């Protein structure tokens, strides 16, 4: 057992949204993850420390936080990945309003999701009301279904984080969601105009930060955002494809 120092963000009850770091020292051992440390501190030193968690297996997406400034899941960040010779900082996600300590209000994301056109399947392929899809076509969108909605990609996206474009920009998580629907071979809905005008995909400037922080290793930028951007280009910015569509 070794002793390590953790600086955890605590909100002030007198001034919601404001807070400071509180320093804790606790024992850590091999195999522990950051969420274990937070639970240990919660059990022994700060019973009022608020943290959201659920599965502790990297599948529920609840324990998102910023560890040493990097957006990560607390349950998937092992002690061996951190330099314990200096204090480890644990902060809430900075892109969402704080509720208490490490817990933020991510409800904005659920409101955004409601604004994206829903799945609208084509007529069934078979008389029994079922559809047929080639595995090749399924594989392409399957990657997007791995998303656990941890919202780390939303947290790190500078359009939301630094420029506060929450009213205009839906963020990487929902471009993945839109790509999943838009590239689905059964879907007949058209979201390209919305992606350009309502969801402002043009705000994305390809920094790939969302891809870097994704705990499910979804290629958000390469496989979701850029292909959607190219669909917008074909529809709105490419005069040749616009001309060809006129003759179809």
């Amino acid at each position, binding site marked *: 057992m070794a002793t390590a120092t953790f600086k955890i963000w605590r909100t002030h009850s007198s001034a919601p949204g404001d807070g400071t770091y509180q320093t804790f020292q606790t024992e850590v051992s091999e195999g522990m993850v950051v969420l274990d440390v937070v639970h240990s501190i919660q059990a022994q030193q700060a019973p009022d420390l608020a943290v959201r968690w659920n599965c502790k297996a990297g599948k529920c997406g609840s324990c998102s936080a910023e560890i040493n400034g990097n957006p990560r899941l607390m349950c998937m960040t092992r002690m061996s990945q951190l330099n314990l010779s200096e204090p480890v900082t644990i902060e809430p996600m900075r892109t969402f309003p704080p509720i208490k300590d490490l817990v933020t*209000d991510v409800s904005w994301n659920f409101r955004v999701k409601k604004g994206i056109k829903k799945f609208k399947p084509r007529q069934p392929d078979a008389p029994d009301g079922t559809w047929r899809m080639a595995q090749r076509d399924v594989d392409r969108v399957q990657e997007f279904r791995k998303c656990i909605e941890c919202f780390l990609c939303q947290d790190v996206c500078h359009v939301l984080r630094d420029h506060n474009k929450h009213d205009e920009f839906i963020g990487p998580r929902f471009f993945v969601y839109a790509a999943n629907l838009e590239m689905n071979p059964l879907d007949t809905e058209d979201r390209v105009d919305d992606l350009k005008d309502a969801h402002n995909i043009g*705000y994305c400037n390809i920094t790939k930060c969302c891809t870097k922080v994704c705990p499910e290793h979804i290629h958000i930028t390469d496989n979701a955002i850029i292909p959607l951007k190219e669909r917008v*280009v074909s529809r709105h910015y490419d005069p040749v494809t616009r001309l060809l569509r006129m003759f179809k």
Partner: protein
Amino acid sequence: MEAIPVRIVTRGFGETSRRDSWWVTPVAIFVGLGLFVVYATWAAFQNAHYAYGSYLSPFYAPEIWGDSPHAWFGPKPDWWPSLAPFSPALLILPFPGLFRFTCYYYRGAYYKSFWADPPACAVGEPRKTYWGENSFPLIFQNIHRYFMYVAVIFLFLLAYDVWLATHFTNPQTGAEEFGIGLGTVILAVNVVLLSSYTLGCHVARHLLGGLFDEISKHPVCDKAYSCSSALNSRHQLFAWCSLFSVAGSDIYIRLLSMGIISDVRFF
């Protein structure tokens, strides 16, 4: 449940809780791209030492007008304005240059390194306003595919230059003979790297098959999409390797032409 409005306190330039050396990558990209732009600009304005025998520098290929035997239409045309600087490279470099400038990989790289937008992931920015690629001038990034079309044509022209670079003049007989020199190999590697970069670009991937939701119904496009996707997964690597190979090819031919080094003939 009552919705809490999103109200974020923005951070100042460079402000971050990150402990790692987040500034190393943007600085390295700034230095690497900066050196390339400076060297390419200098080389383009030289209008000299760009050809050696059957070798032609990729900065000057294709040579539409110029003084070397590679020129398609002879020396500088009479109608060229006397006050305007002339170099064969100035006529063609804007096309591959704009292809790279509008490339999705380079966009992400230089927005960070040259414009600090953001300087690195989860690091504060210097500006409060933001337009992204939604409005002028960055909305023009959307014409990337047209520069890709031109870049593909350039691949064929550069491949033809590699073929020409296998023809050497025998100093004794004066006859043309087939051969392979180090310059031939360098130019060939350059074409391979440029092809890997160009055909793996995101636009090529989209146009070759990414635009279909049911790509299984387009078997030829499916194969092309798979190949382009494989190259695309290493797009960053090919972007840098091809950048170095273009500059390296020019440097090698320049040194040969200046008589500083001698070409190595394998056969």
